[in-house]
């Protein structure tokens, strides 16, 4: 870009061009979304297999979500280092997903506490009446998680104008409603389905866009 005297029209055009360039400048990698999409769907499907074939792994598969925090921290640090530009949205998105992470772990804690409290009551009911308890708490766990999954996914999709994630968030909420009325097997299947459509597929699209943008940038600098 050379220094030259601008007309008023050229000045306004230049401003519009540069603002648009800044808007299109940053593409997030989809690695985190892909990883969490895979982790959550594996956890849900493994639980489903445990129920279908009546066996139990020595450890709860959901510990995988705790393990996945380690690569997530490295991914976040690397992405922050690679960013040449920070937008106003970045800070809100970071806090949104951090808040989501904290909420999920609080939910796990609450769900475990309620489960441990309700199981003896159900067992006692079954012993006294000879019928299984009409209230089985584990049937209501999936809707709670799907409700929370939908929030950051929908907000990110809407704020970043990224439709696959916006639809993914809506799908989480739709599955949240359905799973209130379905058995745990369907709940787990819909949880895996939601994770694939809310994170895995949008993540693959984001990663593809990120690589394409990187390639285009490299070509302009040849």
């Amino acid at each position, binding site marked *: *870009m*050379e*220094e*030259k005297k*601008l007309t*008023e*029209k050229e*000045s*306004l055009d*230049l*401003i519009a*061009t*540069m*603002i648009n*360039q*800044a*808007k299109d*400048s940053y593409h997030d990698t989809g690695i985190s979304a892909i990883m969490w999409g895979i982790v959550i769907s594996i956890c849900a499907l493994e639980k489903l297999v445990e129920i279908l074939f009546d066996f139990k792994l020595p450890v709860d598969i959901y510990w995988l979500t705790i393990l996945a925090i380690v690569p997530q921290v490295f991914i976040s640090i690397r992405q922050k*280092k690679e960013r*040449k*530009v*920070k*937008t*106003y949205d*970045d*800070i809100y998105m970071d806090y949104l997903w951090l808040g989501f992470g904290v909420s999920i772990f609080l939910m796990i804690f609450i769900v475990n506490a309620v489960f441990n409290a309700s199981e003896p009551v159900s067992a006692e009911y079954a012993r006294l009446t000879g019928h299984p308890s009409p209230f089985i708490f584990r049937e209501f766990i999936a809707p709670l998680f799907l409700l929370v999954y939908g929030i950051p996914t929908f907000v990110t999709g809407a704020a970043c104008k990224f439709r696959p994630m916006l639809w993914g968030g809506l799908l989480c909420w739709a599955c949240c409603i359905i799973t209130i009325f379905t058995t745990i097997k369907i709940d787990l299947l819909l949880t895996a389905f939601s994770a694939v459509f809310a994170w895995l597929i949008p993540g693959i699209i984001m990663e593809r866009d990120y690589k394409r943008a990187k390639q285009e*940038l490299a070509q*302009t*600098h040849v």
Partner: protein
Amino acid sequence: MFKELDPILHSQLRLAVMSLLISVREAEFTFIREKTNATAGNLSVQIQKLKDAGYIDVIKQFKDNYPQTICKITKQGIRAFEEYVANLQSYLGKG
């Protein structure tokens, strides 16, 4: 009566830099260079002029043992930019 356009902003490269910085929270020097296609020397001079006018903050630091320059628009810069755009619009509207 037309107001005179701010001479600091009424220059192609400085205006391009300000237009980029108004849309983001902060940007690295290399990012601005990529987007404006300016030479490093020319861009440094124009960034220094914007800094001297109080329109941008320039933070120099090291990242992985390499020098890194980060630019950020100031409140004064935002006001100046908004006034510049309003003046441009009045020129074009009445011209």
